[in-house]
Structure formats: C-alpha cells, structure tokens
C-alpha cells in the first residue's frame, strides 16, 4: 500500500515590540535571567493586564500580508495548563475569535507553484524558558521568566503541505514576509520563530486523514525538514507492518536525527478555555485596518515581479535578490547609480553572495552599493577588465577600500596602449613558435593559448579585446 503525508504547520512568531504584550517589561533578548519581570507577567494576584497596541498592529500587518481577513471583533481567552514556566497556570491566548482568519502563502518547489492555506493567526503571550539541569542526579529545571509575556503571533496552516520540501518552502516564504514587514526578527536559534509540525499519513489518493502526530523541538528549518522525513519513514514502516499510529507529541532529537515520544503524563491537558475577564474585547473598524494596510511595505512576491518587469531580470535572479529585504534594497541602490541591472545582479549573486553568510547582513558588508557601482563603472569605461575587477572586488571585500584607489595603488589600470600590447604580443609569439605554427596550420585552439599567454605576461591588465585584434593581425 502506498501512503501520502498530510502536513500542517503551527508557527509561533515573536513580535518585535519593545515591551511585553500585557505589561511594560522590556522584551530585550540577552538580558540577565529574571531581570525583566513584573507582577503582571509573573501572574501575581490582583494585577491587570493591558494589551500593547503595537502588538495588535503588528499582528494585523502580518495577517494582511498573509491574505487573511482581519476580524473586526476579537477577544482573548485563558488556556489552562500546568507548567513551571507558565506562572499564572494559564496562557492568555485567542481561542474562538482570533484577530485574523483565513489566508494563504504561495510557495514554489521546483517549477510547481502552490497555495498553502492559512487557517488563522492569533495573538498570545509567550511562556518562560526552562533549562534542564545537565546533572541527572539533581533532577531540577531552572526557570527564567524574561520571556513570559513576550507577544507571539501563532500562524496555523491548513493541512495542505504534502512533503518536507513544501514545508521548507512555506517556512522560508513565511519568514521572508515577516522580515519584510519588520514585525519579527525570525531568528530560530534565539527562538523568535518556532515551528511545530502536525503530520499523518493516509492511503494515497483517499480522503480520510490518518492519526496525526505532533512534532516539536526543531531549532532550524533544516531540522523541520529532517524531522518530517524521519516521521514519514517511521509512520510508513509502522502502517505497512500493520501497526496503529498513536496520537502523541514527539520531540526531535537533533543529535540522533530522530523523533521520540514525549511521556504521556506531560500531555494530560484539558485546556478548559474560557474568556479572559481582565481584557475587554478588541473591536476595530475598517478605517483602523486601512491605516495599518497603508503601512505595509512592498512584499517579496510583488517586489520579485517588479524586478522582472522593471529591470528585465530573469525570474530566478529576482527570486534570489528579493529573498531578503536588505539584499533587495542593496540591489536597487546599485541599479539606481545607473549600472546595468543584469550586470549588477550577476555581480551580487556571484561575487558578493559567495562572501556573505547571511544576505540579511548585507548592510554590514565591506562593499556598499555606491562602491560596487563605482567598480562596475570602472569596467564600463575600460579602466579595468572584468577579470581584474574580480581581484579589486576581493580587495574591497577584505579592506572596505574604494575601487578607484585600489586600482591606482596596485597599478591595475587596463593597458589600452596599442604599442605596449604589441610589444607583449611580439614577445609571446617569439617565445611560442610551436603554437604559432599550430594556429597557421588551422588549429584554432592555439589562439586561445596565445591570448592566455599575453594576458599572463601583462598580469591581466591588457585589454582582452585589443589583445585579440592585435594577435589576429600579427598572425595573418
């Protein structure tokens, strides 16, 4: 029997507000443990939570970018469960009336485009962070409440995802959109983006879903992909062997590259949701939503389409350049200097990206747009060859230097003086009589060798086109 996976993702995105969702404590990430708490986020008796409006606005921005419907009436509820990093023993969340409903993200895997449906986006507060003692004899965990009450947008997808590659593409696109909106840092290692997977298998081509399993504890998109692949194999094996799949939560073990079952006691939950009496409902009108819509930046898909239309870039270039907003901004800053758009794209995609770990950090790169534009102009006006330009770029990337000064200092100006090139050509012809003979007897390949020798002699500085012309003249 053949099976197909049915996958839905739950993504928690930390909204990058200055303060927590219901109190004025700072959300700074690297603060000392338990220095950013107050009676509200610690859940002490008699306190009153008040909604941070910026968290609401950012959630609405995210919803608009995900093509969701923004609810004009939404409210908060208490989700009850016991866990040491949840000091109130309930999490304030949104249950039946979330701020955003419906929507989709468009993904591409290979050449196939697909819409992955969004079920909902709701606001909630984050829990604290527990660190488990590495000393098994101690049997303790350490709790830090700095994260307690940091605003989260939970984005739930429809079970539309059919492979690990689609899940990966969905996460990439979701992250890119959130980064464009500047509503979240989306740093999985720091936990500002977290992803849980719901996965089941069903008989291929049939409708009913199989028993689903939840997987948690992945700290990279790659880990999500691997966990899905592992789980597809595990469930396929189990079902093929006539076993039943248990509904359970499994954790990803990055060291062993496998999922394992969480102890069932941890799962004994009955959330007993009920309306949060301390927070009045959120009732907004169309004008409020429109004002936020007007704050939306150009989104990745729109920008990609514009790069193709406005700069004549191949779709692939446009996709790579717009995958991060700082990189797309960088590219446009170069083009604005009058550089040929395709040439700028080639240089960024080949030379620049090879020297940059994360396109998000391009603003800190040693070669800034104006400098790259000047370098490309030096090629256009014949001062240096494209090949030499690569050497200059290397130097710029290393030192942050100005291209014109580097060319001058290192004596890299292209030789366009006919007599100087002729001199080198004569020397090369005299030194390689065999190649000259080969060429004359019809072996065209010998010309390439001779050109190479001339370029080598001139340390790359001779104008290649002139070298070609002069060689041809002398050989005929």
């Amino acid at each position, binding site marked *: 029997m053949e099976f197909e996976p049915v996958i839905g993702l739950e993504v928690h995105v930390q909204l990058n507000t200055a303060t927590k969702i219901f109190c004025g*404590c700072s959300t700074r990430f690297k603060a000392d443990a338990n220095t950013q708490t107050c009676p509200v986020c610690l859940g002490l008796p008699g306190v009153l939570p008040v909604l941070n409006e910026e968290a609401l606005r950012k959630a609405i921005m995210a919803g608009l970018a995900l093509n969701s419907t923004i609810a004009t009436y939404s409210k908060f509820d208490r989700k009850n469960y016991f866990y*040491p990093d949840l000091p109130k023993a309930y999490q304030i969340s949104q249950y039946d009336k979330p701020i955003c409903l419906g929507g989709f993200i468009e993904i591409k895997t290979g050449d196939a485009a697909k819409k992955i449906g969004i079920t909902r986006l709701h606001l909630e507060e984050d829990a604290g962070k527990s660190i488990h003692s590495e000393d098994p004899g101690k049997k*303790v965990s*350490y709790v830090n409440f700095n994260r307690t009450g940091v605003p989260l947008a939970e984005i739930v997808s429809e079970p539309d995802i059919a492979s690990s590659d689609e899940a990966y593409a969905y996460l990439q696109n979701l992250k890119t959109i959130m980064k464009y909106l500047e509503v979240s840092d989306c740093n999985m290692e720091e936990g500002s983006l977290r992803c849980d997977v719901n996965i089941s298998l069903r008989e291929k081509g049939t409708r009913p879903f199989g028993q689903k399993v939840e997987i948690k504890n992945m700290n990279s998109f790659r880990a999500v992909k691997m966990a899905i692949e592992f789980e597809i194999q595990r469930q396929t094996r189990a079902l093929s062997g006539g076993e039943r799949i248990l509904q359970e939560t499994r954790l990803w073990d990055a060291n062993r590259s496998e999922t394992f079952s969480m102890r069932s006691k941890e799962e004994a939950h009955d959330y007993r949701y009920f309306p949060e009496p301390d927070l*009045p*409902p959120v009732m907004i009108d169309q004008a409020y939503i429109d004002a936020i819509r007007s704050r939306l930046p150009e989104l990745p898909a729109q920008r990609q389409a514009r790069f193709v239309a406005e700069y004549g870039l191949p779709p692939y270039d446009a996709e790579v350049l717009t995958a991060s907003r700082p990189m797309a901004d960088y590219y446009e800053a170069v083009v604005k200097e009058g550089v040929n758009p395709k040439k700028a794209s080639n240089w960024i995609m080949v030379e620049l990206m090879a020297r940059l770990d994360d396109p998000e950090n391009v603003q800190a790169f040693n070669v800034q747009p104006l400098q790259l534009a000047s370098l490309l102009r030096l090629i256009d006006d014949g001062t240096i060859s494209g090949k030499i330009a690569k050497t200059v770029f290397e130097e710029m990337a290393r030192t942050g230097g100005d291209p014109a000064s580097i060319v001058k200092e290192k004596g890299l100006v292209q030789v366009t003086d006919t007599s100087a090139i002729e001199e080198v050509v004569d020397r090369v012809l005299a030194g390689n009589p065999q190649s000259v003979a080969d060429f004359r007897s019809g072996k065209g390949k010998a010309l390439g060798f001779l050109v190479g020798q001339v370029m080598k002699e001139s340390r790359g500085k001779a104008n290649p086109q002139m070298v070609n012309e002069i060689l041809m003249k002398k050989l005929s």
Partner: protein
Amino acid sequence: MKIDESQILRVAELARLDLGDDEKKEFSTQLSDIISYVEKINELDTADVAPSDHIVELKNVFRADTVLPSIDRAALEKIAPRFEDGHVVVPIIIEGQE
C-alpha cells in the same frame, strides 16, 4: 448533578494532585453539592439573550509600547520557593527519552 469518582480522578490528574481514597469520596460529594447549588441558574430562560464574552461594557483598552521599569530580581527571589544563579528552581520537567 453528580460528580463521580472518575471525574475527580481526571481533574486530579490535570492538576497533578495525588488524592487518597477518602479525599476522592470527600471531593466527589463536595463538588456534586456545589454544582447542584449552581445548577439553579439553569432555571432562567435565556432563549432571547445573546451570549456575551464579557461582562463589562468596555472595548479596546490599549497601552503604548513604552518600557516601564521591571521589578528587582531580589523581589522574585524572595517569593520563589527555591532560587539559584538568578533562576527559579523547580523539579525536573522532562525526563527524556523512554
């Protein structure tokens, strides 16, 4: 309405409480009495009343995203049952792989 022992066990499990046999009986009786008392409210005819999420007529109570001082860590240390190296110490939560 009668709250039987299996319901008591379920609630005890959710609350991570270990109840003795006497306690199970005692709470079963007490909770049944309380629910029966409150059940009187069911006599009200609410057919024409729209459900409400909230009892106060308020909406959109927001605060600006402005940082306010947090409390001193020493204050948290004082109310925590156990505190070490800046952290609240609790019994271990996950016991790992089976």
